[in-house]
């Protein structure tokens, strides 16, 4: 299951953060990189608390840190930019 979070941060090139819950293993890498954006829920899956909290750079770093590539980033034109 894919959970989508719309991002409306001013000046950001990223419009959507998607978490693939089937891929997420709860390793919590994203939280260590961007604790203002992500947290683990009661099922130990990553969820987005605040899609506008972090810079684009921090979001990309968090997505890149995921060992299962469960974080998907989409730009303003609807194009997937990671992974």
């Amino acid at each position, binding site marked *: 299951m894919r959970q989508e979070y719309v991002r409306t941060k001013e000046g950001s090139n990223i419009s959507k953060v998607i978490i693939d819950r089937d*891929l997420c*293993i*709860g*390793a*919590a*890498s994203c*939280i*260590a*990189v961007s*604790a203002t954006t*992500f*947290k*683990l*829920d*009661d099922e*130990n899956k990553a969820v987005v608390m605040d899609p506008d909290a972090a810079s684009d750079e921090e979001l990309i*770093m968090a997505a*890149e*840190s995921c*060992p*299962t*590539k469960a974080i998907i980033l989409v730009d303003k034109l609807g194009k997937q930019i990671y992974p």
Partner: protein
Amino acid sequence: MKKFKYLIIGGGVSGTTAAETVRQNDKSGSIAIVSEEPYPAYSRVMLSKHDFYLPEGENKIWLKTPDWYIKENIGFFSGKKAVNLDANKKIVRLDGGEEIEYDKLLIATGNCAKKWVIPGSDKNNVFSLRVLDDARAIKEKIKTAKKAVAVGGGFISFEMCDLLRQFNIETTLILRESYYWEPILDKNEAVLVENALITNGVKILKNSEVSEIMGGDSVAGVILKNGIQINCDMIIAGIGATCSLDWLGNSGIKTNKGILANEYLETNLSDIWTTGDVAEFNDLILEEIVQLGNWLNSQQQGRVAGINMASNKTPFRLVSSYSTTGFGITISFVGDVRPEADRTIISRGSLESRSWARLLVKDGEIIGATIINRTPELSLISKLISADFKVSGHENELTDPGFDLKKLII
């Protein structure tokens, strides 16, 4: 002799991330990776996860395809091992005798499973889990195995017990210690983990050690030091990891358990960096020289070393963590969890609620935590560590499991 501007020894997540970062910062500089395993980069974390052991599971582990190295113009010496470093001449020799010259070198060789040396430990179906070939062999065996013995406590052992039980394999866990993961967890936390294991059918034998492995070519059982015999047709030994540093013997590089590095991940030798499991580095947040064997540390250090090698000098600064789920419980480690004498402990939680967190405090600041079934607090505790939060005056709040840690974060 081949020459590369950037030579990276180690093709795991740290070395691969470093190569990728170097390429982002230097479009034309020549880069090569030397990797002991004959595979493109994959997610080592996945080797102990249930998904890998499903029929198509291997498709999920790849971080890079063989094409990626070609597309990024990164030389890839796979299935090759570095056997000598001459730091004066800036030459690394590989096991086939080939020599490679470098301008800048990164050593990200990771660590390997400790070799288990007892009578019979060379028999078939005695496994450790570190690399893809180990995981493939385990995956093949669990299709037919009926009884397994797991040895040692820790993340991998916990995950492998969960896996074995999901495949309906009768599982006995042998622990040398008096409780699970002693002394990293305390007894109360261990009770939560042990109860989860026992409830799901794992038999735990504590204060026990295997003295001999029985069988012909293949394992048929184990004999413990106290004489007890347990029949089994496979063994998974999780007895710890060690870094192989022999090849650096004459190089002049400073080592302890790992390769020593400063906060920029530079070694004592010029133009040589080290990252990941093998690096013993100056951690700016913990204010200590530490060696951390976790995925995130490796990945993020690779990124910072890549920047340092190709561009600006950047210090490494991160509170790393690792988290796993099995048998319905979640265990997370954050920061430095070593129970050294100079740390005090703040516990929050209760056995009744099946949740527990232990905050490790040094010089008045939280430096690490072990967290069981309180995962929503993981990010908050990470923030407290990275903000150098002073615990003084907040002890009552921190020990109250109902207190919302968010209130402590400004």
